[in-house]
């Protein structure tokens, strides 16, 4: 029997499925205009595109923080009000500004916030939080107040906050903002070691090249192209030095 060879990418489980997603802000801006997107197990997809092209608006739909027209399914669950607790446990979102994410009085309480909201007993939530802090190399800061940490440390703690929820997917919005090169290198190493599928919203091309397995390009609320990062940089003339 002759069958066509199975494409390994297609054989992997689809974690996120988005079809025809549209979203208009209250001021009339059409932020998303019919986006189709898939994310499969162990993939890392970079979302590229100019400022205001709809990347962040798009990822906010994945865990129901925004709700537009279209179809969004996460780990087999349609994004709807009744599925939000389950979906938010599956998608760990690390926001661009860590200060927005760290709102509890101590690092430990902040990292344990997610697991505690998932209904874990206080000792289990604490143990999960300590484990996640250890994973990102921040266990030493568990008793500290988040506002006493450096930008890189805050980023790690924010990441620990979502890892403690044991998500299947990580969404990272501009993860290298405010990080110095050694901080970016440490973060890259850390993210490479994490088994979760990832969506990376970024303008940091070298970081995306080092981490992402493929990329999609947003333009005026539409998914304009998909491919390798190098292909997209060439296609949309995003290279820093076009002669190179």
């Amino acid at each position, binding site marked *: 029997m002759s069958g066509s060879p199975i494409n390994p990418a297609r054989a992997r489980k689809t974690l996120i499925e988005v079809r025809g997603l549209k979203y208009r802000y209250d001021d009339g801006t059409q932020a998303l205009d019919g986006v189709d997107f898939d994310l499969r197990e162990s993939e890392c997809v970079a979302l590229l595109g100019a400022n205001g092209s709809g990347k962040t608006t798009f990822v906010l739909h994945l865990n129901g923080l925004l709700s537009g027209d279209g179809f969004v399914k996460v780990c087999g669950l349609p994004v709807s009000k009744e599925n939000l*607790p389950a979906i938010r446990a599956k998608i760990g979102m690390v*926001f661009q500004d860590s200060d*927005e994410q760290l709102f*509890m009085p101590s690092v*430990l309480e902040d990292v344990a*916030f997610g697991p505690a*909201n998932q209904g874990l007993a206080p000792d289990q939530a*604490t143990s999960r939080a300590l484990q996640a802090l250890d994973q990102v190399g921040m266990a030493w800061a568990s008793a500290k107040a988040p*506002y006493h940490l450096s930008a890189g440390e805050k980023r790690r703690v924010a990441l620990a906050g979502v890892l403690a929820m044991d998500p299947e997917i990580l969404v990272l919005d501009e993860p290298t903002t405010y990080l110095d090169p050694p901080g970016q290198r440490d973060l890259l190493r850390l993210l490479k070691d994490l088994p979760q599928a990832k969506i990376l919203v970024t303008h940091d091309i070298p970081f995306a090249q080092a981490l992402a397995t493929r990329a999609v390009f947003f333009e005026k609320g539409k998914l304009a192209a998909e491919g390798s990062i190098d292909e997209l940089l060439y296609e949309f003339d995003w290279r820093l030095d076009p002669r190179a």
Partner: protein
Amino acid sequence: MHHVLVEQWSRGRSWLHRRDARAKLASLAVVLIAIGTIRIGAHVALAAYFALLLAATVAARLPVTSILLRAGTVLPFSGTFAVVSWLSGDPQRAIALVEKSYLSALAALILISTTPLPKLFAGLESLGVPRLINLVVQFLYRYLFVISEQAQHMRLASRCRGGGHGGFRAANQNRFQAAAGALAVLFARSYGRAEGVHRAMLARGFAGHFPLLAPARLSLADGGFFLSALAAAVLVRFVL
């Protein structure tokens, strides 16, 4: 910032810090009622309350001078009413207003300086404060950080671009003009920032309740503490 410092103090490990928030809240209520209802001119009794609160501050290993000074932030408000009372011919009432408001503020400050906020709010909720009000107060407190941080950034940006320079009068005029415009921007930015914080909370499963890592349990020591506070407050109120 005041609230940051108070939050640091609340993480101490003294005997008073370890008491259950409910026992401390009930004790505070007793002390406030006792101070509020004491007759005008009972200076000795009020001095005794001051001594008790001072002893609590020392026992909690809080910085005494800072606590005493910070409790004075209530004085501009109560002082206004005290001046009105004084001018209307009732100096005893004016003095009592200042004394009582200062002591009440000191007692409340000791409570929040020895009780981490999540425990304080959980204590309030278990004592029957409606959850909605509790939640509103918690958000208000959390967004104070957001607003003060935004205000600091804007002040810095204004100074970097020459805001506040020139002669005293010109500088003040510029400063007020800039401040008036900045207020609107501050509101819009703080709103955006607060929305971001709320989004981050929702993304981690927030469902209207701040979870506690160490659930509160009333112990014999907590009961003993409340009874001691009650006895001291009543004794001073009715004996001195």
